[in-house]
Every structure is written in structure tokens, then in C-alpha cells.
């Protein structure tokens, strides 16, 4: 279950960015999607959330295929985009209400959870403001609250740490832990390797649209035996390897 990507070939035009990408994220697992700029991380994510149609290959969420049952497929996703996306005309309160309506959540119960999260991220006194006018970090927090107030089975998180203050980073990591504890599958793309190393169960290293290596940190160490122990070292080795190609 969780996320299953099989032999995915895809991209924005007929020229594929992703060349035969396969990986999976099990329920109750946090997987880091790692790679240089332009490696295909965001493209992979856009395919998983259904913005792009695969040229070849399959993606399943919780055993559901996007083509056969789009509604059930999307119902499972909570998504935090790389850049905050908000409706200009909705207040913070209305933004969250809209999400609850769209996902058919129990409004009263979800609001209890939402209020907790808003308090954590110090947004609880801004319910009647337009979040589109917030600072980057605060808008990012709105996206986090928006995603984590749901009981989604699949979390897709694209580069979540940029612009967040250290307290918020800590709180977000805790939320991710909680989601894992509930049995959700979490796919997170990031360049902040220190966080990834600490919180991800497994890693997928993308390079030029292909999965270079994947596995736990120990498995990665085995694949790059001479470079050093940390994810940082492995990542740099990968980057240098590409430069020398």
C-alpha cells in the first residue's frame, strides 16, 4: 500500500524528464526524495499528485490508480507545495474550511485539530486575515496546517523547510513523526540533508531523472563505501560523480 511508483516515464512535454523511475513508500514510513536541482524531484511529485499524466508506467496510492478512481485517489493526499499556494480571496479561516469541504472532513472535529495546529504555529490570532499577504514563512505554515489537520494516508511534502523558523522546523518534523505513527506514508523532497538523515527511514537519490540509489542510510553507505558516513558525504559524492561524467 502507501505510494507505489512503477516504471514511471514522464515529464512536462513529450520529452521525458523521468526515465523509468520506480520506488515505493510503505504505510508508516518516511522516505526522503533527494537530488540536485533539476534531478526530477518536483516532476516526480507532480506525477504523484496527478498534475501530470505519465507517458508510461503506473502510480498507485493505497492500491488505487489515478485513472480508475481519481476521486478516491486524491482523497488520500495531503500536499505541501514547494512554494505556498493560496487563494487570494479567502481568509485563513475560509482557506481551511475550503479544504475540509473539499475532502469531506467532519468540520467540527477537524477545527479542533486545526486550532491546535494554528496555535503551535502562532497563527491562531490571524483567522480573519488574508494569508496571501503573509510572509513566506507564515504562508508555508498555513500550508502545513492545511495538510496536517487532515487524516490523510499519504503526505507529499516538497522542500518544506525553506523560510521556516527553527521552532517551526522542529514542530513540522514532530508532525511528520506523528503522521508516521498513525501509519501514513510520507514522501518528502528536501535539500536539508541533516533533517532528512535524522527523520527519514529511507532515501531515494534521483539523478537526471533516474533513481541512482535507494535504501536506508546503511544501504547507501554500502553503495558508496569510500566517501564517508553521512548523507551529506554521499550526496556530494553523487554530485561530484555527475560533474565528472
Amino acid at each position, binding site marked *: 500500500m502507501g505510494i507505489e511508483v512503477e516504471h514511471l516515464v514522464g515529464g512536462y512535454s513529450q520529452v521525458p524528464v523521468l526515465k523509468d523511475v520506480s520506488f515505493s513508500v510503505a504505510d508508516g514510513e518516511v522516505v526522503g526524495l533527494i537530488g540536485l536541482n533539476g534531478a526530477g524531484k518536483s516532476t516526480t511529485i507532480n506525477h504523484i499528485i*496527478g498534475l501530470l499524466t505519465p507517458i508510461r508506467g503506473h502510480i498507485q496510492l493505497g492500491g488505487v490508480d489515478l485513472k480508475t478512481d481519481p476521486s478516491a485517489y486524491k482523497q488520500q493526499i495531503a*500536499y505541501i507545495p514547494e512554494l505556498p499556494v493560496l487563494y487570494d480571496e479567502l481568509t485563513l479561516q475560509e482557506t481551511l474550511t475550503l479544504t475540509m469541504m473539499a475532502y469531506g472532513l467532519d468540520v467540527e472535529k477537524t477545527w479542533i485539530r486545526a486550532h491546535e495546529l494554528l496555535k503551535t504555529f502562532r497563527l491562531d490570532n490571524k483567522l480573519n486575515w*488574508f494569508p496571501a499577504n503573509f510572509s513566506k514563512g507564515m504562508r508555508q505554515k498555513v500550508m502545513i496546517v492545511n495538510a496536517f489537520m487532515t487524516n490523510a494516508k499519504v503526505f507529499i511534502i516538497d522542500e518544506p523547510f525553506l523560510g521556516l523558523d527553527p521552532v517551526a522546523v522542529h514542530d513540522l518534523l514532530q508532525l511528520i513523526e506523528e503522521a508516521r505513527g498513525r501509519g501514513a506514508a510520507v514522501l518528502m523532497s528536501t535539500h536539508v540533508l541533516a533533517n532528512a538523515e535524522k527523520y527519514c527511514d529511507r532515501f531515494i537519490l534521483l539523478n537526471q531523472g533516474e533513481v541512482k540509489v535507494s535504501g536506508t542510510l546503511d544501504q547507501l553507505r554500502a553503495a558508496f563505501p569510500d566517501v564517508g558516513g553521512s548523507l551529506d558525504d554521499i550526496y556530494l559524492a553523487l554530485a561530484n560523480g555527475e560533474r565528472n561524467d
Partner: protein
Amino acid sequence: MVNVMTDLQKLFSQRLSRHAGQLLKYLRLVFTDHFVIALFFFFGALGFAYQNELKTLTLGVWWGPWLTMLILVITLQMGRLATLLEPADAVFLLSAETTLHQYLKHARNYSLLMASFIQIAVGVVLLPFLARGDQMTLLEAAILIMTQLITKAAWMNWQLQQGVQQEKHSIAQVRLVNWLGAIVIFGLSLFVSVWVGLIAALLALSASIADLGKRWQLGQLAWQSLITNENGRMMVLYRFFNLFTDVPQVKATVRRRRYLDPLWKLVIGHSTNPYLFLFTRGLGRDSDTFGLITRLTVMGMIILIFLTNQWASLVVMLLAIYLIGFQLLPFYREYEGKVFTHLFPVTKGQQLSAFKTVLTDVLTICAVLFVIVDVAVNWSWLRLLIDVVAMAAELIIFIGWYSGWRLRKS
């Protein structure tokens, strides 16, 4: 260093020629042939009326100086400091901050020249009134206009001073000086003597020059306020041009419009369709679409007030509803650019039905308003019946069939 100086001096003329080119482009679009002819007639009629009024004016009316003062004080506020600074300057020119004085002086001079045109134009139009209403001699009137120009120069310096000082005056403080100072100077001119007013204006100017001289030496600029002011000034221009043509810089602003909140509840009821939630707020708060609907509706109502012919009224009503509905159709795709719109587990059918609900509500309100105005002006049962039947038929055809066909097609 010398190099930077000369380059920065050229910078203002570069900016100015680009700015002028841009203004020219838009002015060509504003002053089309028809508009010029309309303006010609408008100002001709205005001038004619002014002339007739002057003839009937008793010499030296008591309210003459008061009216003059009001006009001069308001005119004085026109013509802002145009620095032509851009947001990126705060980053790229920050290191050249201390050498920007020349640039800003050029900007001040250009702004003053532009503002002087307005001041002189108003002064010239005012001349006959000064002669009759205030019983001034030509010399006195000329000195009054001179006072106006000198005060404007002082005000321009004062505006520039806001940009080169670090302590910030509150808006209230600035306004107080702008208006009260002008009232004092023109009060002296009109109620004491034009010479006293002139001296007061000269004092204000020399004070502003001395003050500015002191600030220059400190060398720091209030970038934030300089850039905000310049953006604000450009926005005023763009908004004006936007009345005539599409200006890409004018982005729709969002207004909260709290008073519409009960309306949403009424429209949405117990529906759980998220699109209904989104479309209602979007339409009500997006100033572009909201403004368009209200403008068309008000215009339709005004036309209906003046039309007595039943069939002409009916055509206007049908046309207005069609126009409003047609202009609303693109709003269906307003949110396609937002990723969450695609992520929501919601069907296309729900989106379409929500849009139709909103369309029905908006058009029904417009139609009811039109019918009310029409029958209020020309009451008859028959007229009411025909209006209602025609409107209902149009709404059914437009919403039930036409809108769906259009939206599927595009």
C-alpha cells in the same frame, strides 16, 4: 567614484525617457479620436458655462477669496514627486546611496516642472475669476500665481526630504503641513496682501532648501518609503490608464467586504460543494469581477431610468443581463492555475453546478434590480408581466443551456 557619479546622472535621463515612452504609449490609447472629440465638447461646454457664470457674478463677492483659497490649496497638492525609483534599486544602488543626490535633484526638478504646468493651468483658468470675484489687478494675480509656484517648490522639497531622512513623519503630520501650511500662505495672500503671501512662500522655500541641504550631508536614504511612494504614484497612473485599456501592472486587489458575509450563507445554505464556497468569495472580493458586475448593473439601471419606451427598455435589460453573464463566464476558470484546485477530490460536475448556482444568483439579483427600476419609472401591470417573463426566459436559456455549452466548448 567619478564614474559612478556620471553614470548615475545618466540614469535619471535613461529612466525618464523610458518613463515618457511608456506614458506616451498609454496616452495614445487613452486619447483616441472619439475621446478627444468628446473632451473637446465637454471642455467647450464647461468654458461656456464658466463665462456665463462670470457675467452674472457681482464684483467682489464675499466668498470669492474663500473659493480661490480652496481651489489653490487643492491644486497645490497635485503633482507628486516622481523619483522613478524601482524596487530593485534598494538592492543594486544601495552602495551608491551617497552619490544619489544628483539623481534625486534631477527627479525633483522634473517633478516640479510637471507640477508647475498643472499649477499654471489652474491659475490661468482662474484669472478671470480673480479679476471679477476677488477684484485683483493683473499684477496681484500674477504674484498670486508666483506664490503658488514657489509654495509648490517648497512642498516638493519637503516631499523629497521625507525620502532622505531616517526619522519618519506620520501621514497625519505630513498632511497637516501640506494642507495647513498652504492655507496659511494663501490666507495671507488673499486676506492680507499678495506681497505678504509671497514673502511667506519665499520663507517656506528657503527653509525647505536649507533643511534639505542639511539632510543631504547625512547621506542616507529612506529607501522603503521612497520606493513605496513611487510605486503608489505609478499605481495611480496605471489605474487611470486601466480605465481605458488593459494595464498588466494593475493586479486585481482583494477586499474583505465583510458586509457580504451573510449573503454567502444565504447562497451556500447547507451545500458542501467546495466550489460554491470558492466562487462566492472569489466573485464578491475580487475587485475586477465585482467592479465589472456592479458597473454594468448600475449603468443598466441608469439607462432604464431615462428610457420610457417599453421595447427599448426591454432590449436594454436583455442585453445588460447577457453582457453581465457573458463577462462572468471566464470566472469559471479563475482557479485552474492553483494546484489545489486539481488536488481536490471534486468532480467537474460539481464545479459546473456550483458555477451555475452562483451565476443564477448574480443574474437573478441583476434582473430583479432592472425590473424594479423599469416598472418604478413607468408603472403598469402589463409592463411588469412582460419584464418578468422576458427576464425569466433569458435566465433559463442563458444559464440552463448557453453557459454550459460555452464552458464545455472553451
